[in-house]
Structure formats: structure tokens, C-alpha cells
């Protein structure tokens, strides 16, 4: 194995049915070569692993010969090896080779994408014109590569993925108890259909059969016998002949297991009855409606079940079947696996059941405690909750912007720190004095003079109308709306663009690979381009708007400045330092 080469005798088949060409299969880490024993044969192979997509193999113990199946783009190569041990050796090597090649191909073909991925991206771009513009601006001009661009948009891609999330398949809703025997009517023979799916359903629905399977197979009988017995019992049920069923059961004790009512179900049912609110009188309810009729008055197969006391043990009602089916469907499909081997299915189910059973006493107690208040009738306890959110960036920007305006207006006078020279004693004393002053003298009457009231009124009016000037008429309007449309559009575009570039720029630090190094250089150039464009906008703005524009542009330029400064500093640092630490280029 360590030599990285395996030579085995094998048969090469183009298809499963193909008898195959005998020869020698030679596997290395890079490729595999098949040389037929017959040198004239055309079935020579020399394939590199990078063309192989995946590999499959047959399982040991299955009835198939040891096959190794290597899938490539157009089809697959099937090799029949001499033994399973040979197969394992080959499989291991193929696994290593494929994983190695997989990595390599990933690195090489970074830009190669599956068609689905590509269409998804195109769709996203088409749906979002802003994204499209950004994509055009950054990718088309070579500032970012395609993959770099999408790396930060993973969320968008994922969102789309999750939208088409596959629904989990639940338990089949059809009644398994109604598995109808197929009879061709000519010979005295009935046929039941049995698939792994049906087997699983039977196990889930009938714990007794499940238990019996675990007990009997394969120690007492083989699987085929087991299912024969089971369906014989089923058939007896379907004929509605309780007498015959009882007779058969007496003859064959194994068969009796299937014919008797499910003990386990009974125990469970009894448990469930215990959970019912004790205030509910089940006995009284029984006589209430049609429940006294067998099968809710529905006659199965059109033939009425005749209640016969002595044989009732061997009788099942539709009601029981329906209830059980409903319970299992509600439990959901708990098994997510191939249902090839009924034995493993049965074992897993048993384990699952054990786990849930362990939790039962606890659950039971909880149920008892919470029994009296019925959930449906309870008042809903959900109070109105607003989701935590970061506000609209535009709104945030406006709020900030007004701040900048105000600071420039120098309206924030009186920044001096208050000085308190009083000790706590005096301070608290004077506070209490004021309280007792009100206590004794009462409120001032009048509270304030009409002059003050007028002043306050005027002040408030002025404040509200000036806020309108600063913030626009509504939250939708802002400083940006004062600007001409073209400038505004340009500014917004540059802002989006610079944000994207900055995100890429900062995320590529610390620089650990040559790739990142190149990327930052590229980004730095684009950043300086945008910087100069912003400068242009600032200069070209009309004189009356220049102040406003520069206010808007300033923070953007600051952010870009920080990036450029960092780039320079980083370059300098890396150049001066001779011994490079680990991982640095």
C-alpha cells in the first residue's frame, strides 16, 4: 500500500451484463492501467484518476461478485476482482487517489462550476439589479475575480439553496393492514407483495411482529419462512374467519403470535389511557354516540364482523388499525437509512424504542402534572415581540449626518465638565430640603408665566420645522436628496462599490499566501481609483452643494484612507522584517 501501487488480476466489464475481459489491473496513485491477457483485445485501459468522479463497490456478503465500479463522465469502468480482499486493497487505493485528485482539481479549477451553481448565480444577478451593477463594476473590470466576488455573497447563494430544501419523506399514510393478497384466480395460491419499505412499515406498526422477528429470525426460522407465516396470518385476518384463525393458531404456536392481538400495543394503550384527564369519564362517553357500533359503523369489506366472544382474541377491528396507523404516522419516520436488511432495520427500531421508553416515566409524570389545564383552552402567552434589528442603514446615516452638520454649526456649546464641590452630606441635605419645600408650600401657582409658555411654544415650533430642514420631510428624504440625481446615483454607486472593496480588502489580512498578496495589491489600486473619483465628485459639485457633498464624501474617504494607510504600513513592515514567520509570504 505504501508503495502506492497495486497489481491485481481482474475482469474488465463495460456493462454489468458484460461477461468481461480477463486481464491485469494496475493501480497507482495517479492512474490505473488495465492490460487484457489477450494482447489482441481492444479493451486496453490507461486512465488518470482525475477523470474519475467517484467509485462504488459491491458489499461483502451480498450475492454479487466483488466489483469495483469507477464512474467517469460518460459512464463507468467495472472491474470484477478475484476476491473481496483484493477489492478492499484496490478500493483503499482508489479512495486515496480520488481524494488527492479531488483536492488538486479543486485548486486548479477554482473557476469551474457546476451548471446549477452558475444558473443560480445568473438568476441572482438578474433578480437584483444592484448586485448586477456591482458585479459588472468589480468583476468585469477585473478588480475581483468571480469566485472572490461570490465568496462574500455566500449567504445569498445559501438562501437560494435552502429555498429548495427537500421535504423529508414521512411515513406512508396508506393502511399497511390492507395489504391485499393478489390472487390470479386460477390456482389456489395468494401472493403478497413485500418490499423493504413494507417490511419497515410492518415493524413500525406492529410491535409484536417486530418482537417476533427479533426472536425468531434467524435462530428459529429463516426470513422467508417468517414472512410466509406472517402473511398466512394476514390472510386469515382478511378472510374474516375468526374461527379458522383460532383453529390455525391452535395448531401452530408461531402463527398464534401474529393472530393474537398485539400485547405490546395493549400495554401502550393502557399507558395512554392513564394519561387522560381523570376528570374525563371514559365509561360514560362510551355510550355517547356511534362508538357502540363495531368499527364505528363502518363495515370493512362490506361484510359485518360478527362479535363472537370466544374468538374475539383473534379479531382486529378497523378502529384499532386506524388508531395504530395514525399513531405511527404522527410519530413520523424515524429511520433515515437504506432499508435493505430487515434484520438491521428491526434492530435499529428496537433500539430507538428503548431510547424513547427510557424517557417515558419522566414524561408520564410531566403529563400528569400538566394534565388539568388543557393546552388548547389556555390563553396564549406570547406577548408582542418585535425582532431585534439593526435599523435601516439609510436612517442611521441620516441620524449621523445631522450630527455632523450640527457639530459644524457649533451648536454644541457648553461642553465644560460640571464641577461639584459639595460633599455628599450637603448634596443630599439640599435635595431633601427641596422635597420638603414642595411638601410644605405645594406646587407653584401658576406653574410658569405666559411669557415662558409662548417662548416654549415658539421654540418647539421652530425646532420641529428646522428638523424638517435637516432631515428632510420624511425619513425617505435626506441630505442626499438635495443633490442632483446624477451626483446622488454616483455617490451611492461609489459607496456600495467601496464597501464591497473594503470588505474584501480587510478580509484578506493577514496576508499568508501569494494569492492574497496579489489580491490586496489589486484591491489597493481599485481603492485609490475610487478615492480619486470621489475627489472628482467633490470638486465638480456646485458651490452651494459643495459643503453637503464633502460631508457625505468625507466618511467614505476616511474609510478608504484607513485601508490605504494600512496597506502601506503592512508593505513597509513586511519589507523590513527579514526572517519571515511561519505562514507568511
Amino acid at each position, binding site marked *: 500500500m505504501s508503495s502506492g501501487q497495486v497489481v491485481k488480476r481482474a475482469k474488465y466489464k463495460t456493462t454489468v451484463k458484460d461477461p468481461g475481459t480477463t486481464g491485469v489491473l494496475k493501480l497507482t496513485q495517479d492512474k490505473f492501467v488495465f492490460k487484457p491477457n489477450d494482447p489482441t483485445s481492444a479493451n486496453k485501459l490507461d486512465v488518470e484518476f482525475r477523470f474519475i468522479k467517484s467509485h462504488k463497490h459491491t458489499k461483502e456478503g451480498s450475492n454479487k461478485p466483488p466489483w469495483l465500479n469507477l464512474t467517469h463522465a460518460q459512464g463507468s469502468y467495472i472491474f470484477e476482482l478475484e476476491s473481496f480482499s483484493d477489492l478492499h486493497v484496490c478500493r483503499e487505493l482508489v479512495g486515496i487517489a480520488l481524494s488527492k485528485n479531488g483536492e488538486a482539481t479543486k485548486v486548479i479549477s477554482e473557476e469551474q462550476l457546476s451548471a446549477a451553481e452558475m444558473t443560480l448565480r445568473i438568476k441572482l444577478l438578474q433578480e437584483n439589479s444592484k448586485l448586477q451593477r456591482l458585479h459588472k463594476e468589480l468583476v468585469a473590470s477585473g478588480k475581483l475575480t468571480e469566485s472572490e466576488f461570490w465568496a462574500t455573497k455566500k449567504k445569498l447563494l445559501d438562501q437560494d439553496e435552502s429555498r429548495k430544501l427537500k421535504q423529508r419523506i414521512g411515513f406512508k399514510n396508506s393502511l399497511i393492514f390492507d395489504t391485499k393478497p393478489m390472487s390470479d384466480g386460477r390456482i389456489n395460491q395468494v401472493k403478497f407483495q413485500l418490499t423493504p419499505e413494507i417490511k419497515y412499515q410492518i415493524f413500525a406498526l406492529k410491535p409484536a411482529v417486530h418482537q417476533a422477528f427479533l426472536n425468531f429470525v434467524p435462530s428459529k426460522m429463516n426470513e422467508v419462512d417468517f414472512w410466509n407465516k406472517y402473511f398466512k396470518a394476514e390472510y386469515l385476518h382478511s378472510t374474516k374467519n375468526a374461527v379458522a384463525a383460532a383453529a390455525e393458531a391452535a395448531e401452530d404456536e408461531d402463527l398464534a403470535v401474529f393472530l393474537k392481538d398485539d400485547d405490546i400495543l395493549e400495554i401502550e394503550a393502557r399507558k395512554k389511557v392513564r394519561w387522560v384527564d381523570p376528570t374525563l369519564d371514559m365509561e360514560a362517553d362510551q355510550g355517547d354516540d356511534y362508538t357502540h357500533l363495531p368499527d364505528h359503523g363502518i363495515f370493512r369489506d362490506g361484510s359485518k364482523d360478527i362479535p363472537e366472544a370466544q374468538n374475539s382474541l383473534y379479531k382486529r377491528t378497523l378502529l384499532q388499525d386506524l388508531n395504530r396507523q395514525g399513531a405511527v404516522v404522527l410519530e413520523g419516520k424515524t429511520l433515515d437509512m437504506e432499508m435493505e436488511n430487515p434484520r438491521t432495520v428491526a434492530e435499529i427500531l428496537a433500539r430507538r424504542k428503548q431510547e424513547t421508553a427510557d424517557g417515558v416515566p419522566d414524561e408520564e409524570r410531566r403529563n400528569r402534572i400538566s394534565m388539568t389545564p388543557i393546552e388548547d383552552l389556555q390563553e396564549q402567552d406570547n406577548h408582542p415581540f*418585535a425582532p431585534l434589528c439593526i435599523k435601516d442603514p439609510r436612517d442611521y446615516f441620516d*441620524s449621523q449626518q445631522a450630527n455632523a452638520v450640527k457639530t459644524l454649526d457649533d451648536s454644541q456649546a457648553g461642553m465644560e465638565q460640571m464641577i461639584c464641590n459639595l460633599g*455628599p452630606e450637603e448634596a443630599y441635605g439640599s435635595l431633601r430640603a427641596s422635597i420638603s419645600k414642595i411638601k410644605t408650600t405645594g406646587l407653584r401657582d401658576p406653574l410658569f408665566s405666559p411669557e415662558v409658555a409662548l417662548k416654549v411654544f415658539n421654540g418647539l415650533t421652530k425646532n420641529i420645522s428646522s428638523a424638517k430642514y435637516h432631515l428632510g420631510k420624511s425619513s425617505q428624504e435626506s441630505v442626499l436628496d438635495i443633490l442632483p440625481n446624477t451626483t446622488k446615483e454616483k455617490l451611492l454607486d461609489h459607496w456600495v462599490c467601496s464597501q464591497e472593496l473594503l470588505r474584501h480588502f480587510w478580509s484578506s489580512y493577514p496576508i499568508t499566501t501569494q494569492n492574497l498578496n496579489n489580491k490586496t495589491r489589486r484591491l489597493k489600486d481599485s481603492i485609490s481609483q475610487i478615492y480619486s473619483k470621489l475627489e472628482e465628485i467633490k470638486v465638480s459639485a456646485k458651490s452651494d452643494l459643495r459643503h453637503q457633498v464633502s460631508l457625505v464624501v468625507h466618511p467614505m474617504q476616511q474609510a478608504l484612507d484607513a485601508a490605504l494607510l494600512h496597506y502601506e504600513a503592512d508593505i513597509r513592515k513586511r519589507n523590513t522584517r527579514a526572517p519571515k514567520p511561519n505562514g507568511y509570504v
Partner: protein
Amino acid sequence: MTSAPSKLYADDVSLLVVTLDTNPFFWTTFSFPFADFLSQVLAFLNSILLLGQLNQVMVIATGCNSCRFVYDSTSDKNHGSTIGTMPALYSNLLHNLDQFVARDRQLASPHAPGTVPSSLLSGSLSMALCYIQRAFRSGPMPPQPRILCLQGAADGPEQYVAIMNAIFSAQHSSVPIDSCYIGSNNSAFLQQASYITDGIYYKPPQLDGLYQYLSTVFATDLHSRAFLRLPKSMGVDFRASCFCHKQTIDMGYVCSVCLSIFCEHHDKCSTCGSVFGQAQLDASAADRKRKA
């Protein structure tokens, strides 16, 4: 912010929780006397109760060392009519306030002389929110709650985290925090609180007319606010306090794991314990981001 569906509230009944700054150090240095302030506020509280018979008012005193409920309009003993010269509202509130101040005095811890210690705004906000949560659970149609902060003392940056948590919890339960700041500068905390919770921040310039500001700006219930043009807060100060020295900072370091804010570089995040590796040290400026 999406406001809570109004049908869950009795939309014409308000629960107003007022936090009252009773920082003695602030009031003794401030130009506007506490007695005048208090009488205007008392008149305002009375008018809230007069606006609707079902309106509720809750007053929390915000001291330097403790906070306390000093008035609850739903309490039975506050329903009495005039006691002596004053309505029950005033005399009860004043009595409780006096007691509170005396108790707060006993809890006083020494502070640097010459400075004004900050009031425990975070504490009173938390108490207000707790009370509101209780009100939510009081019946099928709880009154519509809001908080009004009457604050004078400057922000205590050391309370940054606690206050921000209170603000976000208020936002989460759609409780607006109105703030009437009477101190000399603006309060960044209250600006942010009102901005985030969609409340009103206002700093009245003319304090002797405080009652009029309160009644025109803050007395309207949430339903009516939709129809009114109220002062908009402009110039919200979004600066944060660093977690290490509790200073308000413009630029700082942000932990990439838990978003804690620091004013200087640390090897390890003191909040979540993440170790900033060597690589980060070189790229420390990468963490340097302008907050806001």
C-alpha cells in the same frame, strides 16, 4: 422597527413609567432648582392621570446608589383624595421620595471629589422593563406601556453594557423609551435609547417651561403619535464605551468573536476569552474599525 400589533393593547390606555433623576450631586450643581423641576413633573404626572381614567403612572427614582419605585398610581393608598393641602399623588410621591433619598444617602460610597457621579439609569430602566413585563401579563388587554426618562446627570460610561442591554430588551418588547434630558450636554445613552426604541429624545432648552415641553411632546399616547409631528431626534451620538476602561471612544478594537469593544489592543478578549493570535497582532489595524 415593526411596532407590535395594536390590538394586543388597550390602545387608549397608557402605562407611563417615569424614571426620575434624583442625583443630589447633579441637582446641587445644576442651575435649575430641583424643587421647580419636581413641581413641574408632578403637574405633568397629574395631567397624565387626568387624560384618561385608566391611565397608569409609575415613578422610579434614579439615585446615585440605588433605584426605587416611589409612586404607583394603581396602588390603593394612592387613590385617596386630598390629604391636608395636597392631592394624594403628590404627598405620597414626595413622602416616598424623601425616604428614598435618605436611604440612598446611607448607601453612598465615596467618589472622587469635585465630580458628579452618574445616576443609575441602567438600574431604573431595568426596573421599568420588569414592571412592564408584569403589566403585560396582568390581563388580556394590558395598557400600552412606555418609558419616560427624566435625566439630568451625565452618562456613566461604566453602565454602557447594562444600558444597551436594557435598550435592546425594550426594543424587543416594543416599549419606546422617551427621554427628556435636562442636563447641559446631550446624553448619548438616551439618544441611542430613543433612537433604537422609536421613542422621542428631546432636550428642552427652556427649563422653566418644562411642564409645557412634557405635556406637548411626551404626554401623547403611542396611538396619537402617528398623527403628530413631534421633535425628531437629530444627531444621534452612536459612540460606544470601551469595555476595559469604560471610556467613550471614537475608534477602537472590536473582538471578532463577541464584538466587545476595547480602546487598546489586548492579547485576549476579557469578555469571551478569545485569544487574539500573533497574526492578528500584525494586522491589529484590521480590527480597528470606526464604530458608527
